[in-house]
């Protein structure tokens, strides 16, 4: 496989992964949040190294707010 083709496949792989993330985030926000919490919690334990806890914080979903973000209109759901 030449370098040009390898680069094309790499770009496609990134595009596919990002697209899958967008679809899961838009269509299944609740389950995704639960999965992120489940993945982040073990990494956030006090006895872990700082960099592991930083990864945990990065994985953890943002806090829920009761402000206007949850508009529920069709611009936010699809």
């Amino acid at each position, binding site marked *: 496989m030449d370098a040009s083709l390898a680069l094309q496949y790499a770009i496609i792989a990134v595009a596919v992964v990002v697209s899958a993330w967008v679809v899961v985030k838009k269509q299944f926000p609740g389950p995704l949040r639960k999965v992120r919490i489940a993945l982040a919690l073990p990494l956030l334990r006090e006895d872990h190294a700082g960099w592991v806890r930083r990864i945990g914080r990065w994985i953890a979903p943002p806090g829920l707010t009761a402000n206007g973000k949850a508009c529920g209109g069709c611009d936010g*759901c699809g």
Partner: protein
Amino acid sequence: MSAAEASTLRLALVGNPNCGKTALFNQLTGSRQKVANYAGVTVERKEGRLHSSASGRSYAVLDLPGAYSLHAASLDEAVTRDVCRGFYPGEPAPDVLVCVVDATNLRLHLRFALEVRELGKPMILAVNMMDAALRRGIAIDLAALERELGVPVVETIAVKHGGARALVERIDAVAAQPHEPRTHLAEGADLHAETRRLLSLAVAMPTRTAKIDDALDRWLLHPVFGLLALIVVMFLIFQAVYAWATPMMDMIEAGTGWLGEQAGGLLPEGPLNSLLVDGIIGGLGGVVVFLPQILILFAFILALEESGYLPRAAFLLDRMMASAGLSGRSFIPLLSSFACAIPGIMATRSIQDPRDRLATILVAPLMTCSARLPVYALLIGAFVPDEKVGIFNQQGLVLFGLYAAGIASALLVSWVMKKWRRDKGEHALLLELPSYRIPHPRDLLIGLYERAMIFLKRVGGIILALTILLWFLLNFPAPPEGAMGPAIDYSFAGRIGHAMAVFFAPLGFNWQICIALIPGLAAREVAVASLATIYALSAADDDAAIQALTPVISDGWSLATALSLLVWFIYAPMCISTLATIKRETNSWKQMGFATFYLFALAYLASLVTYQVAKALGAG
């Protein structure tokens, strides 16, 4: 919260539905907000920023749902009550209440203003639509009103540029020196009596009634002519969707074709070229082309909303809807569902009767949302000749028929549900009929801009993501060495499509259609982009691949298959977001499961019957 945010004064706009709060909110904040002329349009929290150039102060402005009383009788009234009192979870109490009243309907609106005043918070009364009041000869003594109410009173014209300038000045004054209302109701005083007293002191009504309203209502609310007028209006809308959109659609089609050629020429042959040209540009171009039709449809719906005609239509249809287990109040949520079932389902919060509300939620997905339009337009364009039937366009007639089928099905389903629950109760309709207005071009343009942005955001977001995923599924894995069949047969999507085709074969769906149904679950219009991608990739030769999708499917599918697919899209629960909204609004997995099951069963049965009957008649 930053110190600046904490010190920002919070204003809340409150008032009866249809008093012009949302238009005033747009005027104050410059925010793009839907403006409508019927009760219950604002069902969600909307916030914007107001910057006063005179004082240099900034304010957070909250647009609250319309309410007739603080003794809440519906969900949206409960939200308004709780926010005003500072009880709403996560919502700081507003510092100043701006109570908006309609100058042409003070008898109703002042009563609510008195209730708001009794909360004891700093308050400004904005007497809106003063221009309309003047035209009708209603004279309002604002100074007397201010003196009697004990709160600052100011006139506004929300739809006129600069019509809220005086209000901003008063807001600045109150912000500099906030104070509670100077007068209060005596213990046990009657709100209606106090309203009458205020009216007698501050308002002089004309002797003549609103002649234009009465003259129009004599015809538009007539049980026979009114219904005829409604049918004619709806019919003309669907004719216009086809007749006016064609030039713009041709331009977009030519533009995407040119873009595909340019992009294809820039990149070397290979998988990335295919992703860009066949997947992204081909797929998205197939969806964007329907934007003009969607905008024309919404231009009409917005104009009807703003003109004040919609509550009349709700009134006209009340008896018919009541016999089908709904109420006239269901009309507006169901009409909103023509845009998208999600805001339609949310708009049911203004329906007070829980049985009516549930019935409306369950049938809202049967209304033809704008995401179905690309699918309908594609199939109609491919199978229905672009000819005239008398003075009417045949394609427009078919589109009208599809919308009518959705409405008829919704009425039938709600009637069955009514019979099922043996509901013989009376569901009275209480509805405010506003004065007729000429729609304001600015609000129409804002509405259309919002609709276009929602559509384009979907194209650039979920639809783009699904198109890329679909292209991947259609191209990977590559066929094995020495494979003889088309490459797509060996791909993930090809295998899924062939497996699904067994189940959908009785409906006349081939494997390409089956593949297109899967991404359509996230966004119905992706079905069109999917078909474009699938046919481009599975074409036998280059000639077929460069042809537009319409002639490909008209050659490749039978009329029976096309009819069956059209019927499928009338009923199928092809939108995960809608189902999630049903779950959220009913707070019940059971209701969501019921909606999914009945819609799917209805779609399968109706498509099966359509296909088999059409085939028997020689269309297969």
